[in-house]
């Protein structure tokens, strides 16, 4: 099923013309309403008059995550606060979150693209959807919530946590589709198996999973254990949240709702566009956003695009699974973590040496997050409880900055590797690509 055939199945030429028109409008909007954009365009010698079609997009300067931090909280808004109706945020590197503002129209577009996703998964007004993404500043919960209401389905707004209640509602509400992170889906599957409730008591048929990378193997395992067909839902807080893209029943790539969010692939080093079909860094321009449009936002995600028409009838471009990142950001339990955040906390905690080593792994489908640190010579004591207190102190400081509780391992002095130049301080043992 297709929610908006006009938009999702239009010819490439028609779409390119529409995107060009929208690009011109959004560039005018940021130029005249948002000083950082205007200054940057002036520095690059571009004016809105230079943008007349989609191919002119390469004339525009990039925007990056650091810009969102530098202009925290509202410096990149292109609408007055009187028109902003909602704020969402995700974690950032310096303890400050990344904040985005939505106008009423932005929420409308978000609901529209979310409705396209759910329709592609075969859901409609007769279906009950349980949203077990967190509700709050995180875009996941409220984003999918709006999408379910838009297609006229029935939403069960569970938010995350409280697994027993999740299972009760899944069964008693006759839930057809569950939306959560893939790792939580596996946890739920395990708990359902342990509860002894027969699978026949559930109506569950569809899984909507996103917010963290997952493999084909994980998809198969979820499908087998939860008895659902599992679909990917794609989104980034900066761009809008879940709904930027989705899989269809053929599951051969993620369709990007490119009439609203225009994707480019560039060479991460030079910033030049790569040849069609080649791997590079994914860059998004929000073509219709009002509150906080982003022009050529660099995601640091590596992937490639396929412009062929899909068997499902949609002509929208399809993105391959994210193959990695071109910066050092880690996504742990759905939270963005930069090693530089960890470093700054350790540097501010006097008992520790400025060396550390992060190990990320996935055990029983949950990400583990361990940091090895050395205590400064004079702070090693004879007192076990004192040492444990040191461990706890560092863990809670890191938690308050990155929003995740790490396992701190105290190691012996000078046992962490010191190397010249770029230190290797992260080991990510998780496997996302097949």
């Amino acid at each position: 099923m297709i929610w908006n055939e006009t938009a999702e199945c239009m010819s490439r030429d028609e779409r390119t013309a529409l995107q060009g028109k929208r690009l011109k409008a959004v560039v005018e909007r940021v130029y005249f309403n948002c000083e950082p954009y205007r200054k940057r365009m002036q520095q690059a010698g571009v004016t809105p008059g230079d943008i007349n079609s989609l191919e002119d997009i390469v004339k525009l300067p990039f925007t990056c995550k650091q810009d969102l931090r530098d202009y925290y909280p509202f410096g990149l808004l292109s609408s007055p606060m009187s028109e902003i109706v909602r704020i969402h945020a995700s974690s950032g590197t310096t303890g400050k979150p990344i904040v985005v503002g939505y106008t009423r129209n932005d929420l409308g577009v978000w609901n529209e693209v979310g409705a396209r996703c759910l329709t592609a998964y075969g859901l409609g007004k007769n279906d009950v959807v349980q949203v077990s993404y967190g509700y709050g500043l995180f875009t996941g919960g409220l984003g999918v919530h709006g999408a379910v209401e838009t297609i006229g389905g029935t939403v069960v707004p569970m938010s995350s946590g409280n697994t027993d209640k999740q299972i009760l509602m899944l069964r008693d509400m006759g839930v057809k589709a569950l939306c959560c992170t893939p790792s939580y889906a596996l946890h739920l599957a395990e708990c359902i198996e342990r509860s002894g409730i027969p699978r026949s008591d559930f109506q569950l048929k569809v899984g909507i999973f996103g917010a963290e990378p997952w493999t084909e193997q994980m998809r198969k395992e979820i499908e087998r254990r939860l008895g659902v067909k599992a679909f990917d839902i794609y989104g980034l807080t900066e761009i809008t949240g879940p709904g930027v893209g989705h899989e269809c029943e053929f599951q051969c790539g993620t369709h990007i709702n490119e009439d609203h969010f225009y994707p480019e692939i560039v060479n991460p080093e030079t910033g030049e566009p790569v040849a069609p079909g080649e791997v590079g860094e994914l860059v998004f321009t929000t073509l219709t956003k009002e509150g906080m449009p982003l022009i050529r936002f660099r995601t640091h995600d590596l992937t490639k695009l396929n412009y062929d028409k899909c068997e499902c009838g949609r002509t929208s471009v399809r993105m391959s699974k994210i193959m990695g990142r071109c910066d050092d950001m880690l996504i742990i339990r759905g939270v963005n973590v930069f090693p530089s955040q960890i470093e700054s906390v350790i540097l501010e905690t006097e008992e520790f040496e400025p060396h550390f080593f992060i190990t990320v792994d996935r055990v029983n489908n949950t990400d583990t997050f361990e940091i090895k640190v050395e205590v400064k010579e004079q702070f090693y004591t004879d007192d076990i409880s004192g040492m444990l207190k040191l461990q706890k102190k560092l863990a809670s400081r890191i938690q308050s900055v990155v929003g995740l509780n790490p396992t701190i391992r105290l190691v012996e002095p000078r046992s962490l590797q010191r190397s010249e130049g770029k230190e290797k301080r992260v080991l990510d043992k998780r496997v996302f690509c097949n």
Partner: protein
Amino acid sequence: MTTKQLSVFLENKTGRLNDVTKILAKANINMRAFSVADSADFGILRLLVDDTEKAKEELRKNGFAVSVTDIIGIKMANKPGTLNKILDILAEAKVYIEYMYAYSDSDKAITAIKPDDMEKAVKVISENNITML
């Protein structure tokens, strides 16, 4: 009156204790008592040796985190009730024991005690005519 104890921070991994004993053997240092306190991923090795300063230096030279702590070492008769008597004395004086370890051999027993209030502990123990190392 008090005895100097060495405390060595060790990660919980195979062979770490051997590394310590090897260094001490090479330096010809004799150990009188030896105990390990551990948490999930690290341990603290506590040692009484015949030459504390030298042992500390040798271990530090080899990269270990070593600290020196005062404890009370008590030599007592190896027979029922002696340790109980000493602990009663400390309890009555409201001295809290942070940790202790002991060993016995033939007619003598040795216990090492880390009290929270060293001064008070030493005072009540000597008032009761108990021999400290």
